[in-house]
């Protein structure tokens, strides 16, 4: 009986106290006919040794090639201390810190996290996390519409926001009658022009860097939206914020809400999750925020302590009128991320950002040295960029894959107008040799196809 501590004597003694003659008797309130124990067909139990061998074999089968895909999930070095600390039982197996006095570890950590995220985004308040970047953006859209008190249900959504994210947002907001207005991009720069014809909208979403890795003119976009009476929702990569202007300083008043995916801050790629979404905003919007918040307070002796606060926004108090239905969030990844940010500090984060930028730039330069490969866009790209090819991509990618390289993300499906276009990313994890290996494989592919 894996994970069950009862001995036969225990069971007998317990049944005697209850006054039941068998454990089955404890289910006697359940209507007959619902009992379906017999026909379950699952695998027999494996002991730890067996399951270990099974999963080792599967993980070994999934040994990964050299990866140059970004597109929303970034391969960064994660210091060993991060997950060794985050998976300490006291963090790993605690619940949501409802009993504050017995959860100061988690609570202080979240308070530190909130402080770091506000520092990074230049905003005033941060919540304790949402599921991921995409769902955080959806929550931000809902929040912005709430903040505008329903003055408009239209939200301007540039095509330079990740196409998958846009789909997620659609799923999550459509039932509340919110309209996502797609904004096209400038074909030359891959950035969002001022949508000057738009007037009636609740919020403008501004990605920086955008999905193509291009830098948007965030100041202009922000000021324009504010003048038009809309909120500005920034979508940012947290690592880039070591170098790029934080949303809190965009334009003359700063963005109103900033969101993004926390994955680059210490979460491994891990097939896509668990990551987490962050959401920061102006102080004045705090009561419209979704998700948990931790605040500092004092105990009976006046000593500082931390506790969940402003819970009147949340589902367990507000029920149908809550700011969101979220309950469980991504606490452990936040713990890892907080440790990560503490370890790398501003210097390390800046190094990651700039080295990733340099490597991607380097890769682009080397790749566009080949006659059949060009940059898709002018302007500045950060740590991702789009390459345009003179021939279909699929066979090129297949050839490079055979040479042990995941060359990037094929944009054909989501941006057919670009022609054969590849989104590539080389973070600080890549060496000069890796880049050369990429270019060699690319050259070989071009010769083959």
């Amino acid at each position, binding site marked *: 009986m894996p994970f069950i501590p009862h001995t036969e004597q225990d069971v007998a003694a317990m049944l005697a106290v209850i006054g039941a003659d068998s454990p089955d008797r*404890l289910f006697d309130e359940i209507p007959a006919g619902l009992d379906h124990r017999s026909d*379950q067909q699952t695998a027999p139990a494996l002991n730890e040794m067996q399951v270990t061998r099974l*999963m080792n074999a599967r993980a070994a089968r999934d040994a990964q090639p050299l990866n140059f895909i970004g597109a929303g999930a970034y391969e960064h070095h994660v210091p060993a201390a991060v997950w060794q600390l985050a998976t300490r039982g006291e963090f*790993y197996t605690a*619940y949501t810190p409802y009993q504050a006095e017995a959860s100061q570890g988690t609570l202080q*950590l979240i308070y530190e996290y909130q402080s770091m995220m506000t520092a990074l985004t230049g905003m005033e308040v941060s919540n304790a996390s949402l599921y991921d970047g995409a769902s955080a953006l959806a929550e931000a859209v809902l929040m912005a519409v709430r903040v505008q008190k329903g003055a408009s249900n239209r939200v301007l959504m540039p095509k330079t926001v990740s196409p998958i994210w846009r789909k997620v947002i659609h799923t999550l907001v459509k039932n509340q009658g919110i309209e996502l207005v797609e904004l096209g991009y400038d074909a030359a720069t891959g950035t969002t022009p001022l949508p000057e014809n738009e007037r009636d909208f609740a919020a403008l979403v501004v990605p920086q860097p955008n999905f193509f890795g291009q830098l948007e003119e965030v100041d202009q976009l922000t000021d324009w939206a504010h003048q038009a009476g809309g909120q500005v929702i920034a979508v940012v990569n947290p690592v880039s914020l070591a170098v790029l202007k934080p949303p809190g300083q965009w334009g003359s008043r700063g963005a109103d809400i900033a969101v993004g995916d926390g994955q680059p801050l210490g979460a491994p790629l891990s097939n896509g999750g668990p990551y987490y979404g962050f959401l920061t905003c102006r102080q004045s919007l705090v009561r419209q925020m979704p998700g948990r918040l931790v605040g500092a307070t004092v105990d009976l002796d006046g000593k500082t302590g931390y506790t969940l606060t402003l819970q009147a926004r949340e589902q367990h108090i507000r029920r149908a009128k809550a700011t969101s239905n979220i309950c469980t969030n991504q606490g452990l990844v936040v713990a890892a991320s907080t440790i990560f940010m503490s370890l790398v500090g501003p210097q390390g984060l800046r190094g990651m950002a700039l080295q990733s930028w340099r490597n991607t730039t380097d890769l682009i330069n080397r790749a566009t040295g080949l006659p059949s490969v060009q940059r898709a866009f002018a302007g500045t790209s950060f740590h991702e960029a789009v390459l345009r090819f003179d021939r279909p991509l699929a066979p090129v990618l297949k050839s490079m894959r055979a040479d042990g390289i*995941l060359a990037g993300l094929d944009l054909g499906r989501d941006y057919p107008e670009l022609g054969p276009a590849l989104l590539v990313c080389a973070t600080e994890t890549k060496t000069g040799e890796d880049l050369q290996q990429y270019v060699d494989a690319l050259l070989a592919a071009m010769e083959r196809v």
Partner: protein
Amino acid sequence: MELIFSLSQPGRAAHAQIPEGNVVTSGLPEHLLRDVPPALPELSELDVVRHYTRLSQQNFSIDTHFYPLGSCTMKYNPRVCNSLAMLPGFIDRHPLAPEDTGQGYLQSLHELQELLADVTGMAAVSLAPMAGSQGEFAGVAMIRAWHDSRGDHARREIIVPDAAHGTNPATAAMCGYTVREIPTDAGGNVDLEALRAAVGPQTAGLMLTNPSTLGVFEQKIVEIAAIMHEAGGLLYYDGANLNAILGRIKPGDMGFDVIHINLHKTFATPHGGGGPGSGPVGVSARLLPFLPVPHIVRHGNQYRLADEHDFPQTIGRLSGFHGNAGVLLRAYTYARMLGSAGFERVSQYATLNANYLMTRLQQAGFDLAYPERRASHEFIITLKRLKDETGITAMDFAKRLLDYGFHAPTTYFPLLVPECLLIEPTETESKATLDAFVDAMVAVAGEARTSPEMVKTAPHRLPVRRLDDVRAAREPNLAFRE
């Protein structure tokens, strides 16, 4: 403890964590750059390790304390599930990498889909939702998509019992529904008359937790399903309490059309101080076309992620990639270690523990909310009498329990039982632990009479004493500023 920021000093750094090379920003447009570096703490590696090691020690957790938090299923989280989910092949894989690089992962998740469908009696399961609440969202969105697909746009209402978890009404609202609450009868079941009165052509569905959050099995479930289906509504199963019936009773058999499962409860994945969880959603055949994507499908020995092209009627995507993949791997490993016989044992021993603890507490003089009922895997006691007699509230009681080295049960939920404690021991705790907990409960009840002041000001043995929640909310201090 000191904040990490107070250990910071300008110019300090954990140098082994800094990428090589001194890159300058020339080439990046000046006006897009940040002028001052972000105020992250500047620390040595030892500072960080020491700070977070010590901080962790300030938590109660399953690994350190009995944690009978009702509705939360704080059972043992097997350590091996963590190590296996962290194997390089799994954690190094980019979610957009070609599917041939992730067959081990996809196979595991496909098997998890099948296994969950089997154990819940549903036609299919999607692993996309990232927690219970997102599972609810997916489920209710599918209910809406189904009605819409039939042109039945009049159904704008979701019914929830008053005992329901807050996420249920909140989710219904997120899906654009209005919420109609129905009462619970004296025995802890849904008030059938009220339900009959509530249903109509406006009814989209009913969200039900069974066993309910009152810790009892909804005995009229078959009738409820009939009422609902007759009215043209669908039945949603909140699977937060699946641990109580795992391997014994299938929600599908009770007539539910759509369900979610909290893997971070029933399937022993860690709560991590607040998450991540995972809330797979299961559907009966008629809701299949609406499943969220991506969905894992199998072709012979090959596995792939099916998407909008395969499921044109899908409610869509719920996350940037594919949900909380690492959590799913942990749940899969756990499930394989249980096997089918193990599933049934989970609910059997969880129920045994709850009924034993309930009986012992009743014998020790505590008032049960539903003394005539069996406990499911959890049960409620009410301290109303104690409060009337001594002024000690459920919260005071809970805080004092912490001093005895026990995490407190859930307090003040469900809302309809006054001064309640919702107690869920789970199957992984031993009789000896339950007995020690009873002793502590009795001791605190005694103190409530003999030294109420001490109980009111508890806890006394924790890193902080009773915290001022009111002040936290009145003067929000949500981030450190120099």
